[in-house]
């Protein structure tokens, strides 16, 4: 089967299939260790993971939506709204309940998205764009444009700065999120149904699956992952910020795309998500360590997305280009 997909190159240059992203990720890691000064230090690696943690948690949610054949743009805005809501209710509820209320806000927005996509049959791009704008606007309206500061407390800063057994809480939360996502996808009935609905929603309906309910639960679960990320973010900035993480949805989509999740849905594994997230985090870190302008992070990230998606095209395009060049 695979031999038919090869393009006509000297045998020494032949690759039987596109390299998996895990291999690319490992290669990038080794390259950074060798070429980037101070990359391989323990402190720096912990820093990479700490930065990757929030992205990883939210990307787990994004992965569910992408497996469902959808896409989530509202994550950044709902995290921002969560931070604002948390800080506003904080005086009345205390830090723990406050953070929980913020997290619930994110799950609520996820459920609204899931209901609109699943029950009303609206396109995910438009739905999540709409809720992005609404959540963003409501957050700005609530604080009147200026960030609200949260009163400092140990419980409030624990999610971002605490350590358990010497390991930072965000990193533990990310590991936990990956584990939960894997168990859901591999052993959960609902996880299996996400794949079916993403692969072919019409066939899913005809097989007797309640597509609307499965979709709603998927967006709600994605919201739950994003809620954890939002709680950590809020704790880290210790304030309610209407422009908290505007790039969050795009970075998570990029991580999933680099990991090899097709936006057409029906496919995806947690290791792909992790590889994509680590690739993004390492690229960002290398830019900083090499003293390149920070704006280069975005350029490299965009390039990585394009290269990753290009490599997943089964080489057919490259094959055609190579033929044309040979002519």
């Amino acid at each position, binding site marked *: 089967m695979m031999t038919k997909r090869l393009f006509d190159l000297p045998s020494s240059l032949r690759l039987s299939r596109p390299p998996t992203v895990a291999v690319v990720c490992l290669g990038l890691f080794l390259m950074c260790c060798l070429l980037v000064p101070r990359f391989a230090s323990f402190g720096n690696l912990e820093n990479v993971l700490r930065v990757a943690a929030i992205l990883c948690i939210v990307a787990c949610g994004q992965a569910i939506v992408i497996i469902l054949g959808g896409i989530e743009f509202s994550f950044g805005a709902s995290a921002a709204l969560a931070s604002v809501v948390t800080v506003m209710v904080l005086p009345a509820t205390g830090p723990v309940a406050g953070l929980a209320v913020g997290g619930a806000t994110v799950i609520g927005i996820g459920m609204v998205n899931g209901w609109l996509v699943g029950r009303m049959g609206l396109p995910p791009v438009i739905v999540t764009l709409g809720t992005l704008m609404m959540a963003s606007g409501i957050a700005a309206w609530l604080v009147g444009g200026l960030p609200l500061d949260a009163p400092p407390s140990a419980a409030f800063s624990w999610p971002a700065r605490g350590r358990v057994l010497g390991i930072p809480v965000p990193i533990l939360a990310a590991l936990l999120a990956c584990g939960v996502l894997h168990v859901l996808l591999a052993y959960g009935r609902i996880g299996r149904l996400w794949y079916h609905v993403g692969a072919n929603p019409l066939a899913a309906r*005809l097989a007797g*699956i309640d597509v609307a309910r499965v979709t709603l639960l998927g967006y709600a679960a994605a919201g739950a992952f994003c809620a954890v990320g939002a709680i950590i973010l809020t704790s880290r900035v210790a304030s309610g910020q209407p422009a908290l993480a505007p790039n969050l949805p795009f970075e998570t989509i990029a991580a999933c795309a680099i990991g090899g999740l097709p936006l057409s849905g029906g496919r995806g594994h947690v290791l792909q998500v992790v590889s994509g997230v680590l690739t993004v985090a390492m690229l960002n870190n290398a830019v900083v360590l090499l003293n390149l302008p920070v704006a280069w992070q975005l350029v490299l990230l965009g390039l990585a997305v394009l290269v990753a998606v290009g490599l997943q095209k089964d080489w057919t395009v490259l094959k055609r280009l190579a033929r044309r060049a040979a002519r």
Partner: protein
Amino acid sequence: MPLSDEALVATGIAKTYGATCALRDARLVLRQGRVHALLGENGAGKSTLVKILVGAVTPDAGHVELAGVPTTFGSVTQALRSGIVPIHQHLSLFPELSVHENLSAFALAGSGGFLARKRLVDPPRARAWLDEVGLNVDLTTPLAALSLGERQLVEVARALSLDCRVLVLDEPTATLNASEADRLFTVVRRLCATGTAALFISHRFDEIEALADDVTVLRDGRTVIDAAPIGRHSREELTHAMLGAGVEAPPERRCVRTDPVLVGRGFAARRDARSDISVTVHAGEVVGLAGLIGSGALALAAWLAGAQSGAGGLSVAGQAFASGDRKRAAALGIAYVPADRHVEGLFAPLSARRNVSVSALGTLARLGWLRRSEEAERIDPLIRRLKLHPSQPDAEAATFSGGNQQKLLIGRGLALPGLKAMVLLEPTRGVDLAARGIIHDAIREAAAAGVAVLVATSDLDELMVLAHRYLVMRDHLLAAELPGDAPRAALLSALSGSLAA
């Protein structure tokens, strides 16, 4: 060299799609001024050959000569420019536009660039084309106001706007009534008298005998009868050439009617039709629902399985369910195999096993968690029984051939917990003979085990080897009910509505 009258010669044509070999060594010779019939059962490669001729598909091997000049078509537009004009089974006109605009589509396509000033051909020219096909309608009439037969004539008239050398008619009569078909044939004959060659694809022998001069038969991707004059072979010989040695033995016709299982009453296949269609399928019985394209047979079957909403009452084993409630219908034990396996059936990126087990997830999960070892234990024997090839339950469904993908959908139906009834639409369309036999065996076994089976198909041969009883749909009404030993001729006349077969 004498002037040849060969309009088109295609030799050694081969085409492979993934693991499926659609054409192995096809040959087709069309002569000027003659109508050439192309015969072959479903999956023989007819449609692939037609697609190659009209430039929609590029062959892997073989070569095509148009009036003696070697040709390769890179696109449908190129083929059109060379004078090969297809008349499609599914009309390729624009219903929202006027007759005039439709007629202008070919003549002006690509001629004016982005800012073409001229959108319509001169009315006298358009008028002349319509006269040629004997259609007397106003040029400004919206196409949607015309009957299907008239639209087909507009399509033929549009062919005249090009220098039409080969007219390709792909089952043009499937949606026409008898008088519309006659009218079309008259036009085709008149065109051929001017030297045009016509390729005519149809399943109906009487039409072929009425219209065609020569016949070519394809079987399993090869030409088995090559351009024989139409009188040389009898219908039986042609049928035998189409089916080859792979014809299945007819089934045991005995079926003890027991309890009614799947019952539908008062279905209206169209909003304006009388809602009086009622169907009962008994336990252990295979009911064959026959109907040409557009007859409403597939809609009726989909309604019975809860896959399509519509008026009327439905029940299975005494328990009622709402129309269009596929989830409840599945929960009550009605399996459904849809007609279009890629669009409605297959989960292409998922494994073969998961494509089958999806119907049984309810019993494979405990408190919402799946036991994957049990899934393999229960599903894999079923996959083996259906002789999935290659026998890899973990391989992606997309990598299997059409016949094996269809086996997965059959397996999904058989895996449904508490299976009481199966509704299958076109269960072996585009499926090779080996897979067809396996699927038919699986359907018979299910019926023998007491499942009520309804098979809706336009493939008569399939019905004749499966059904204990036939229901025939025509023009959105139930036209006839025939016993299992009814002769083919009786079925054909019930299908077409003609008195003679």
